[in-house]
């Protein structure tokens, strides 16, 4: 049977977090009552003139530089004509043949290897409004339109067809998100739509140099959806080819509930955007000194930060990658290690209990009630022997839920570790007296009985007994009896 190779390229739209829209002074704020964040320009009323928001250009250049792109000397805007009512003008102001930036790349990690994914181009454009339907668009008798999002600035980042699996596509999108977030030009929230992704997918017999016919997949609203949709589409295409069929070039939509991609538009309505230069916006001639000024303000990006963590904090590559995946996570980590030098201990807690609780509550680290100082105070309590590692987990959950200081929780809940030998010895005596049969088993050589006795002492002290002391005292008593 023929073996197939998968070819994937991604088109990613990122909303830039300027205060006002790309061509008018309306607010970009998310939400709001329908049609309240609009003005004559973004409503496309007759006689208005768009004027470019300088911050949009600056942010777009910033993102492009972080993605290793060349910034064009000369760039212009074009009209992309279409008939969807999500833009009131019947066209979108975008960039066609002279985009702002080209020839970039980013690196992803695949099976421990670094792979470079090319970025073809980055251009600026305006976002469209929102169409609201009863049920789905196919069954709704009409569309309701909210133009609040119309004119919010976007950059579109088009990759080369360099990805060879859904996993690589996901790694690319995650890395892209991290880099853009580090530059501070976008929140990149997939759930709020400030990061959106379409994929071009094709397959070809392994060894073939020509590309197969591609389909475009839309409506993937999470990293997981992207990976699932691509895996489905690759399988679908291979099945069609194996049955002797051919792939139809079309746009398909990912149906999250059914777990399938479905055709969206028929071939007869193939795009004919009739691009032409936007006569209302004059060209951009981009000052090289300005570009270099922006380059100079770029922060340390995820790859550099990851490498620094490995070198400076002696962290495993895996820890360093996870901790630097978002800027907020990495900032949190660094605040912690400034207060408490054991970086590996901080990393273990952040990647373990902290991440687990954040995921369980569907939160990100910026919403976390536990401050770096509180987390490190807790680690210090462990080092001092005030609480055991086991108790620390309980304390941390309470800190996470309430935002209280660890000392206060330990006080209030009476969680101070018992390190008083006499007190533990008394409990040990009690446990031994009450479990004569188990003691007998142990003395006959049943090692498992010892674990049971430790468990009983911990239970009697509600987990607060110092584990090493419990072990030592139990052994002493058992062997002296």
């Amino acid at each position, binding site marked *: 049977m023929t073996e197939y190779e998968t070819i994937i390229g991604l088109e990613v739209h990122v909303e830039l977090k*300027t*205060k*006002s829209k790309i061509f*008018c*002074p*309306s*607010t970009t704020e998310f939400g709001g*009552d*329908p*049609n*309240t*964040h*609009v*003005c*004559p320009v973004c*409503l496309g009323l007759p006689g208005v003139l768009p*004027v*470019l*928001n*300088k*911050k*949009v*250009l600056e942010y777009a250049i910033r993102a492009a530089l972080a993605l290793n792109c060349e910034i064009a000397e000369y760039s*212009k805007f074009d009209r992309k*004509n279409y*008939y*969807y*009512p999500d833009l009131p003008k019947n066209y979108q102001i975008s960039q066609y043949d*002279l985009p702002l930036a080209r020839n970039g790349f980013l690196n992803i990690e695949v099976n421990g290897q670094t792979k470079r994914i090319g970025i073809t181009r980055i251009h600026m454009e305006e976002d469209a409004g929102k169409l*609201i*339907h009863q049920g789905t*668009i*196919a069954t*709704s*008798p*009409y*569309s*309701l*339109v*909210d*133009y609040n999002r119309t004119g919010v600035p976007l950059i579109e980042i088009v990759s080369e067809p360099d990805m060879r699996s859904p996993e690589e596509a996901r790694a690319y999108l995650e890395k892209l998100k991290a880099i853009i977030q580090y530059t501070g030009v976008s929140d990149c929230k997939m759930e709020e739509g400030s990061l959106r992704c379409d994929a071009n997918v094709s397959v070809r017999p392994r060894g073939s140099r020509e590309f197969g016919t591609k389909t475009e997949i839309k409506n993937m609203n999470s990293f997981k959806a992207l990976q699932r949709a691509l895996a489905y589409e690759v399988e679908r295409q291979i099945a069609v080819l194996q049955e002797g069929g051919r792939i139809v070039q079309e746009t398909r939509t990912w149906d999250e509930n059914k777990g399938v991609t479905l055709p969206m*538009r028929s071939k007869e309505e193939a795009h*004919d955007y*009739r691009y032409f*230069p936007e*006569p209302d*916006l*004059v*060209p*951009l*001639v981009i000052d090289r000194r300005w570009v270099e000024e922006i380059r100079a303000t770029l922060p340390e990006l995820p790859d550099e930060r990851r490498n620094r963590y490995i070198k400076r904090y002696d962290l495993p590559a895996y820890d360093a990658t996870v901790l630097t995946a978002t800027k907020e996570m990495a900032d949190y980590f660094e605040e912690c290690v400034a207060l408490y030098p054991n970086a590996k201990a901080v990393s273990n807690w952040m990647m373990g209990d902290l991440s687990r609780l954040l995921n369980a509550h569907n939160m990100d680290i910026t919403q976390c009630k536990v401050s770096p100082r509180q987390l490190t105070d807790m680690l210090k309590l462990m080092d001092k022997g005030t609480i055991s590692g086991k108790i620390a987990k309980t304390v941390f959950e309470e800190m996470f839920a309430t935002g209280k200081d660890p000392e206060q929780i330990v006080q209030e809940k009476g969680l101070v570790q018992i390190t008083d030998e006499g007190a533990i010895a008394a409990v040990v005596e009690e446990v031994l007296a009450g479990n004569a049969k188990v003691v007998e088993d142990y003395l006959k050589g049943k090692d498992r009985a010892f674990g049971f006795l430790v468990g009983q002492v911990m239970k009697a002290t509600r987990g607060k007994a110092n584990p090493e002391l419990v072990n030592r005292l139990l052994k002493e008593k058992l062997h002296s009896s």
Partner: protein
Amino acid sequence: MITIKDVEHVALLARLELSDEEKQMYAKQLNAILEYAQMLNELNTDDIPPTAHVLPLKNVWREDEVGEHLPPEEVLANAPETEGQFFKVPRIV
């Protein structure tokens, strides 16, 4: 030469419904316009670089400041149909 087919294509893209007479009429008119524009091809442009803009302007922009919004009743004043504070339009798939 603009054919009836071209007119139908452009009409579809613009979401216009045309009668047969109108298609004939627009084909004739569009051909006349193109014929007129044909004059430009008589000029020698060998040494003229292609250009997208004719104004001697570049880099016109504004600062990132939020301004006034239009009140909802004015936003919807010209809408043929509304529902709540939404524009109501035929669905376009």
